[in-house]
């Protein structure tokens, strides 16, 4: 049955359109610099991509979740394949020139497959969890979903695109939680990562091991699970330093600059310092649309992709930031509501994964502009220039619109 247009979830559509319009305005402004660069006309291209996104959205709106569920393994397979091809033949571009994250055919760059692969992973995880029907109860149950998300994570981490890898992991945890996995199990699953981070201070790591031991005694998992978790933490503690050495210098610098932007004020720290100056100088009402001096004088790096949010902060001030945050929050909350009301686990998990994906992108991107999080270079939904991610977002919203319609069709009423 084809869903009629007038039965579409109007709040979700309205928030999406609002964000797209706001994002396009920000992108237009990002191009208005004193010395014009290629960025000045980039909003034309984004407009075309918005049109493509609209088509994709309506396509997904017309696609039944059942059809989607059937097609999921194929989408996932193609996603992995393309990621693999990207890894071998990929090229860098623009602000991510050193990464092999672009796929191109005949020299024409087609896009960054990682963005679309994120969607494929969400669908695949949703399918696996929905088929199970029961929440994963042991670490052993968590192996298949970890593999589903882990393989593409490794592939994008190898590009190297650390930001996207973090997104995969965040989405995995979010969906596992939504599928009913006990939080204690998730903590155990995530504990090696904490062990890795804390390994830079032997004292902190030792304290963490003690805490973990306490948690294991309290939660009482199977003995072999407890042993595996402890072992994983110890291994992480041992490999942390070699792992750090294997990170690319720019990745190390980004992490260091996150801790102290003054470490390297001209290179990595430059981004954060200039971003904070731009945001801070915006004040309550901002410097006026297209008039931000930091952006105009090209102090702001990558102002059309990763650092587009400071443009908003500088030119529209705290009010503009609040508006953007409100729209993003509304989007995530609406998606959560859609997910809650979905008629079947697959749809519910899909939409929850999508909200997790967007939420992670929003938090990572905005967080880095005010130095709350390290610089990872992942795009801000509907704001950052980039066709692949905009397409992925449009597809995601399209799926959510369909799921919303399905639940409304089945006569769902708020309990």
């Amino acid at each position, binding site marked *: 049955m084809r869903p009629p247009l007038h039965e579409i979830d109007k709040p979700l559509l309205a928030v999406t359109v609002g964000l797209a319009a706001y994002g396009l305005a920000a992108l237009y402004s990002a191009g208005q610099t*004193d*010395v014009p660069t290629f960025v000045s006309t980039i909003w034309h291209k984004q407009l075309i991509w918005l049109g493509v996104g609209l088509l994709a959205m309506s396509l997904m709106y017309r696609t039944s979740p059942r059809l989607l569920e059937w097609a999921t393994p194929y989408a996932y397979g193609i996603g992995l394949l393309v990621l693999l091809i990207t890894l071998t033949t990929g090229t860098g571009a623009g602000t991510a020139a050193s990464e092999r994250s672009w796929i191109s055919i005949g020299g024409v760059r087609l896009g960054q497959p990682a963005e679309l692969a994120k969607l494929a992973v969400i669908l695949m995880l949703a399918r696996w969890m929905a088929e199970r*029907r*029961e*929440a994963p109860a042991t670490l052993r149950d968590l192996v298949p979903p970890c593999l589903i998300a882990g393989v593409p994570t490794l592939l994008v981490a190898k590009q190297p695109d650390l930001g996207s890898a973090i997104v995969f992991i965040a989405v995995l945890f979010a969906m596992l*939680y*939504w*599928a*009913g996995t006990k939080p204690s199990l998730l903590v155990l699953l995530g504990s090696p990562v904490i062990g890795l981070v804390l390994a830079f201070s032997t004292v902190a790591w030792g304290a963490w091991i003690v805490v973990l031991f306490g948690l294991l005694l309290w939660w009482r998992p199977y003995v072999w699970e407890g042993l595996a978790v402890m072992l994983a933490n110890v291994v992480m503690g041992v490999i942390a330093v070699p792992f750090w050495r294997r990170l690319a210098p720019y990745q190390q610098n980004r992490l260091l600059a996150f801790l102290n932007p*003054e470490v390297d*004020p*001209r290179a990595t720290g430059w981004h954060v310092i200039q971003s*904070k*100056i*731009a*945001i*801070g*100088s*915006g*004040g*309550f009402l901002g410097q006026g649309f297209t008039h931000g*001096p*930091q952006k105009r*004088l*090209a*102090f702001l790096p990558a102002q059309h992709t990763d650092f587009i949010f400071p443009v908003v*902060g*500088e030119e529209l*001030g*705290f009010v503009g*930031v*609040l508006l953007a*945050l409100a729209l*993003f*929050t509304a989007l*995530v*909350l609406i998606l*959560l509501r859609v997910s*809650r009301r979905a008629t079947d*686990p697959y749809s*519910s998990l899909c939409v929850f994964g999508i909200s997790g994906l967007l*939420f992670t992108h929003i*938090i990572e991107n*905005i*967080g880095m502009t*005010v130095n*709350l999080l390290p610089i990872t270079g992942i795009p801000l939904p509907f704001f950052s220039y980039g066709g692949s991610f905009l397409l992925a977002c449009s597809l995601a919203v399209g799926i959510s619109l369909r799921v919303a319609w399905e639940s409304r069709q089945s006569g769902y009423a708020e*309990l």
Partner: protein
Amino acid sequence: MSSFHPHLLDRRLRLVRMVVWVAVGAFVVVFFRTQILEHSKYQLQSETNRLRPIPLPAPRGIITDRNGKLLAENVPGYTISLLPAADEDSLHATLRRIAPIVKLDSVGIERVLVRYRRTPYLPVTVLPNATFALVSALEERRLIFPGLLIQPEPKRHYPDSSLVAHLVGYIGEVTEAERAQRRLAPVRLGGLLGKDGLEREYDDSLRGADGVRFVEVSALGRVVREAGAASTLPPIPGRALSTTIDLDLQRYVAQIFPAGQRGAVLALNPNSGEVLALYSAPGYDPNAFVGGVDPDYWRFLNVSAAHPLLDRAIKTFYPPGSTWKLALATMGLKRGIVTLRSHMPISCRGGLQYGNRFFRCWSATGHGDLTLADAIAQSCDVYFYQLGLKLGLTSLLEDASGLGFRSRTGIDLPGEITAVFPGGTDYYDRVYGPRRWTSAVTLNLAIGQGENAQTLVNMVRFYQMLASDGRARPPYLVHPAASSNVSLGLLPEQLAGLRQAMISVVERGTARGAGRFGGSIAIAGKTGTAQNPHGPAHGWFIGFAPAEKPEIVVGAIIEFAREGPYVAPLVTRVIGHYLGVDTTAASHVRIVLPTDTAPHSRRLLPGPPTIEDSTIVPTDTGATPADTGNATPPPRNR
């Protein structure tokens, strides 16, 4: 119970919503703090204090001779620049106020503005080479010039100026076209680059890497304060370059080179290929290029009939004339056609009848019956006509290629041109048409005329082989080129015989008297006179000494020298000076060189550039500025 029971979902949803609200709340707090509470701090940083990068030019590496004496050094200088102002108008206003002090006319102001437009965020150079007096005058009035920046900056200086001009070359501001090259991409706009000579050849290591420092400037463009030492990236000085040049010898060459004459002198160590001196006259002042060449001087360099920018040792060719006869003798000996004591069937009566033409010898009275050794000493044309015919055109062309007369020496200076010589008989077929030429061309080739044009450096390289064990050691100034496998292929006694013949040239042959000093050292050499149909002939002399165990080989060419009385003594005095012999006696020697090549001046065939043209028009390799009278002068600034 399914894990998707609504009650369970509601429970999870509550937690998830809480997470979302906490995250959003944290953002609101952080943005509130940044944009409202700390607004004034960031506003100040944004509006009134902006980081401005100021390039710190790296001092170029010094260039020294083999004994550590300076060929190129850096001296302290001052650069006066203006920090970018809020807009072009205010910069223009400042420029107009500063113009009377730095003596800038309206054209100069316009030029500064053009530079500003190219890089609006970098300081724009107003005066690249300011004197201390000017700097102090500006410092006094500092307050009325916002954004004034006086930077101490190392300036290139060549203590010996035009003496070493063609060796070291000169530097200049990088052009847009050059910056497009990958190699030069790291050079900043306005950065300096070697444009010719060693400065160009070894630019990559001489250049170093510019540093940068940051100053915070106010909205008016005044420097507020240094942005802390931590953010300064010190320049990496260029690496010093140690050359094989003997500056004493170079100075001596320049000193005794006949004033007002055009030509070049090249001295090599025959056993290693090290260039000891390379001098081309007339020279130019490379110091004039530091800080931007004066347009008038640039115009003069380009329109001058003497072409001072042209390095006559490597960038132009001349017919080798009789210096070629050693090459022919080498070919004959190697192929076993003659020995040093061989006579030719026809003795010299002042010329040779060949076909329906009479090829004259330079000596109208004739040399009589000569051995090869005597023929070299007397530079007898008739002997070499016959040797050439015996050798045959094909062998001659083949051997000339093998001896490197069709290639470059690979000396590590930019712009060396390739010597011109036919590669085979098909060359004549192509130019004249098949069977439209006779083996008479062999006669011309045999005595260094005809389709043969060699650079000085290539001829000296050949004599280097004669002066050493017969193997080629390509000339170099810093790093030897890839080792050459060219060799004469002569037996040691043949080589010794040739040297003996060349000693005779100086002792009793065509350069008689040139070695009239010391008496203790034997100088070997060969004269040459290159016919020049459009003017007086060019004089050659290439010699080496001590003849038993040569330590130096020197070649010289002087344009329009006629029967140049200077050339042979010039070379022998250079050799004598190098070997530490008193050469004052030789300074009075005037030797009339024989017009020891074919009296018929032969134009080169249409293929290669004609000789008279090549001596005037530098082969433009990009290093030499375009040789046109109306060449646009480079910007005066730097």
